[in-house]
């Protein structure tokens, strides 16, 4: 959105300049006083409560051993390691699912946005139905749905085997992993083998991760699709006519004339969608994927230090959000200078 013509017109009877200034300062002091009083009361009461319940304060707990395991994942974590490391692992998991989710959602969203504008009725209607369906149901419900589907898969002993070395069961998706021998690019492939209650070896993708990834990607893709559609429609009609008059085919016109101009309109709102995906990854708590939010939850349950744990999590999410917003502002200013859209 354009910078505002925000009228800061002073409404009201004209007061003498010095009088107005005094009033302004007075109001601000009053508001600040009230705010501080509120904070102080709460703080005092909280301190009393914490002492009464024997809950520690401060961030020392971070260096204590966590005492819980984190389910298999990219990063190993044993119960002897510290809470701090546990939270770090959680954060890395959040970043992992967010990055992948954003990548998939972008590609999917772009396709959906273009599909919405297709001249083939079936394509535009089906993509429209998809967008409406996904946008009008809660994300949590979709995540639970995908997770439930994964749990309906057969047991490891009866796992689906669509391709050699690829197994799909309710414990997850198992893929063959490349092995490096002394620095040579992969000489062999290690296939997963049935062992006990699950599979050993190979790359495993947990159903929690898969459900979260699929749910987040499909949900965000719907919103990005609408943004893409709006961006393309925002490109002036004359642009498409000029491209057509020059003999450019529809795909060429889209690629060289429409999309470059549309992207300028698409990128800012898409960035906020990406941030939403990042924040929505916190729903992992409901599925059991050990990301930052889940591990924060476990930590505060075990240590009882809710304030520190939640504040820490909020700080992390907030830092990322603000950093991305700042970057987006810089980008906006840069494009405006370059002599942007139509």
């Amino acid at each position, binding site marked *: 959105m354009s910078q505002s013509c925000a009228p800061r017109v002073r409404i009201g009877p004209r007061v003498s300049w010095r009088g107005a200034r005094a009033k302004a300062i007075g109001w*601000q002091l009053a508001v600040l006083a009230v705010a501080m009083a509120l904070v102080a009361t709460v703080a005092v009461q909280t301190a009393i409560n914490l002492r009464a319940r024997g809950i520690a304060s401060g961030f020392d707990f971070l260096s204590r051993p966590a005492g819980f395991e984190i389910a298999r994942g990219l990063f190993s974590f044993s119960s002897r390691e510290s809470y701090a490391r546990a939270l770090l692992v959680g954060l890395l998991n959040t970043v992992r699912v967010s990055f992948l989710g954003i990548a998939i959602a972008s590609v999917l969203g772009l396709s959906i946005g273009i599909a919405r504008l297709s001249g083939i009725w079936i394509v535009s209607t089906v993509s429209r139905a998809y967008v409406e369906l996904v946008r009008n149901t809660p994300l949590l419900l979709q995540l639970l749905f995908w997770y439930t589907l994964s749990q309906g898969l057969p047991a490891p002993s009866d796992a689906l085997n669509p391709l050699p070395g690829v197994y799909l069961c309710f414990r997850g998706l198992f893929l063959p992993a490349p092995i490096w021998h002394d620095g040579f690019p992969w000489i062999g492939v290690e296939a997963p083998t049935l062992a006990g209650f699950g599979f050993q070896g190979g790359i495993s993708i947990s159903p929690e991760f898969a459900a979260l990834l699929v749910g987040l990607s499909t949900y965000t893709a719907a919103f990005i699709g609408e943004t893409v559609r709006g961006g393309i429609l925002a490109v002036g009609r004359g642009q498409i006519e000029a491209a057509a008059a020059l003999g450019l085919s529809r795909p060429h016109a889209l690629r060289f004339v429409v999309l470059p101009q549309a992207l300028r309109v698409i990128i800012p709102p898409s960035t906020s969608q990406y941030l939403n995906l990042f924040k*929505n990854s916190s729903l992992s708590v409901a599925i059991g994927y050990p990301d930052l939010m889940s591990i924060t939850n476990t930590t505060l349950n075990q240590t009882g230090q809710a304030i520190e744990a939640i504040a820490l999590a909020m700080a992390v999410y907030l830092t990322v959000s603000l950093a991305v917003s700042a970057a987006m502002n810089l980008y906006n200013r840069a494009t405006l200078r370059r002599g942007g859209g139509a």
Partner: protein
Amino acid sequence: MRPAASLATRVPMFADRTNTIATIALGALLAYLAYAFGQWAFVHAVWRLPADAGSLPCRAARGEGACWAVVVERARFMFFGSYPPGAQWRPAVVCLLFVSVYAASVMRTFWSRWLLASWIAVSAAAVVLLRGGWLGLADVPSESWGGLPLTFLLSTVGFTLAFPVAVLLALGRRSTLPAIRTLSVVYIEVVRGVPVMTFLFMAAVMFPLFAPQGFAVDKLVRAQIAFVMVTAAYLAEVVRSGLQAIPRGQYEAAASIGLSFWPAMMLVVLPQALRVSIPPLVNTFIALFKDTSLVIVIGLFDLLGAAKAVIVDPKWVGFGAEVYLFTAAVYFGFCFVVSRFSLRLERELGRARAA
């Protein structure tokens, strides 16, 4: 007026062979999928279970036919949670009240100052009716409230209470007084920069630490406060955009007829700002409506929570797909209808403004 927006109608790139082939191929695929789904969802589905057969018929049909019997048998629980069965007419009435208020809000004919009051009135009536304890009605503590009424309650009360806070925040953000502006900006940016989940955790775990000893606040109330805090920040941005859209002349005109700040705001600027903001306002409400489903994580049972509780029951384990599809249909029905009405409202207002 404008033809349906597609790249094809913008410049007539005429129908051709590829178009027809694609239509036929995709049509065939779609028809097959629809057929397969229809077989599962309708033809081979199990609708009812005989009295004491457990869930065997359903399990036998697993994979081939949907088990809608779970929905049929547990519908009451899915809609009303663990509310005492004998008194379930009360949550039903509450749901009807909420639906009527929403319906009235999207139809221009019902707009008046009374509509605003009715949101508050219906919310209050809902709480009172659900709680009971008067005039012979049984007392039902909030722990037993659940299902659809809870979703409606959290959304409506959340939106209603967040609104005035949002207006204050928006005005604060536009204020020339640095302290007030800073406080508003900090609040809005912090709340919008963190996941809603963190606020719900705050509500569940941190708020009890803030309250004086022995003053136990209802978990439902705490969750409600969390939703109000979050919604206020998002609504504040919507209101702020609306305020920015009002031309400077309106502010000046209000000042010139002698209106001081608050009367000008209430009588001239805000009504116009809100009128302009209707689509994003409705979107925010729909987002809140969907976000109430997050209370499942802190142990409250709204519509989604009740659904999840159904499939924990050993009798119904494994039929999550059916239960979730049904719940999705309810959410979809509500959200889709509301957004359609909002589009219609937008068109009507556009016409009225142009006239």
